[in-house]
């Protein structure tokens, strides 16, 4: 692995994003707009909204980065640039870390903008520290990126890659505790949700929202980091230098 190649890759991915103005606009405008929309939709139930506001700000990057990365990586596979890179002196980790750096930066910006608008402009209350929400947003961006990278190996077309969003992210969203508290779900579903990264991402954020930064919170953070490493290692395994 080399810092030169990793940074060059991060810079290249960022340059590609920079050229795609519309995507950037969507990445930075959609999450705060949706938070604002939710705030007014929950106008009559401000307490319910407060429970989900901070988690939403911190979870958007996961969903968005998942989508963007799986498409970007799929393009890299279908246009032959991946094969070209694999025939060059580039370590698989250089490529993954390059993508990671670029998308973590975008996730950080997205988290910061959404947080600034949600907690500043819209005056949404959160009991815990705002920096923790942003830090988790960055970690979640990397989780989304790592999962997208991994799953892109199983998509043959962009149509399929887009379908992975409802197939892999939506169930995690439903089971992670955002809609129904996990302890009120059937035991089977609770067990399933124990194995899903989203569960820990949501739990950590709701702990911040309630200002309960305890041992359980740090355990969540450890699990999130482990998910990133696992998804990246599995993702690296899908980047074969030889194909059929």
């Amino acid at each position, binding site marked *: 692995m080399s810092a*030169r*190649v990793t940074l*060059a*890759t991060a*810079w*290249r991915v960022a*340059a*590609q994003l920079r*050229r*795609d103005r519309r995507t950037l606009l969507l990445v930075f405008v959609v999450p705060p707009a949706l938070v604002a929309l939710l705030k007014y939709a929950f106008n009559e139930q401000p307490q319910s909204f407060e429970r989900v506001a901070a988690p939403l700000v911190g979870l958007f990057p996961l969903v968005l980065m998942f989508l963007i990365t799986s498409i970007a990586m799929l393009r890299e596979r279908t*246009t*032959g*640039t991946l*094969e*070209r*890179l*694999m*025939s*060059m*002196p*580039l370590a698989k980790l250089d490529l993954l870390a390059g993508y990671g750096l670029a998308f973590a930066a975008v996730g950080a910006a997205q988290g910061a903008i959404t947080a600034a608008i949600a907690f500043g402009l819209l005056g949404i209350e959160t009991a815990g520290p705002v920096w923790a929400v942003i830090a988790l947003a960055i970690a979640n961006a990397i989780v989304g990126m790592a999962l997208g990278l991994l799953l892109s190996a199983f998509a043959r077309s962009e149509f399929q890659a887009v379908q992975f969003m409802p197939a892999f992210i939506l169930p995690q969203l439903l089971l992670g505790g955002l809609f129904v508290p996990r302890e009120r779900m059937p035991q089977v579903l609770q067990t399933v949700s124990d194995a899903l990264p989203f569960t820990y991402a949501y739990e950590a954020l709701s702990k911040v929202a309630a200002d309960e930064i305890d041992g359980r919170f740090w355990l969540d953070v450890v699990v999130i980091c482990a998910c990133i490493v696992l998804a990246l290692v599995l993702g690296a395994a899908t980047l074969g*230098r*030889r*194909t*059929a």
Partner: protein
Amino acid sequence: MIAENLDVRRGGKPVLRGISLTIARGAVTGLLGPSGSGKTTLIRAIVGVQIVHDGDVTVLGRPAGSPDLRRRVAYVTQAPSIYGDLTVRENLRYFARVMAAPAARIEQVIATVGLRQELDRVAGTLSGGERSRASLAVALLGEPELLVLDEPTVGLDPVLRQGLWATFHELATRGVTLLVSTHVMDEASHCDDLVLMREGRIVATDPPEQLLQQTGSEDLEQAFIMLAQRA
């Protein structure tokens, strides 16, 4: 480059059947055959990106796909493998960093492929021929010892095609080994040596003049037909 008893199957069907082949260093070898004859698969096996079922490929004295060959062998795929959303310069700058090539090298390769005017254009807006030349420029960045090109002249106008063949020979005189695949028989006359393929087998390996002599034919197209019928 030496291949021995190479067998490759794709999707359960045999694509290369017991290919044995030696390619001379510092020469331009043409890989000819109709579409579907296994040219690309053979090229991929040489570059080391193809899963091979049986046989050995040795490239520059090392097994194909060895890590140290990644600096010494360059491969230009049929479809131009560059980032369509970056400019030609950005593409070259990125790949130069990956290859650890000096920045000055970008100027040289861009002159070689004649894309100076297009340097700051987004690759996706280039014509097909310009894009494949940009892809070739990337392959030249690392000053490879073996340059493998899969149908590099498709869609190029005759003047550019002539220029590209001149470039290939210039590289060969500098000691670079080139393997160029094409399905256009006229282009075969540009090569020092020819490998004719059909249905996953090698039909002949000889210099163009010798093939004409052996078959007593007027042109290479006819020679190919005769050899294919004989096999």
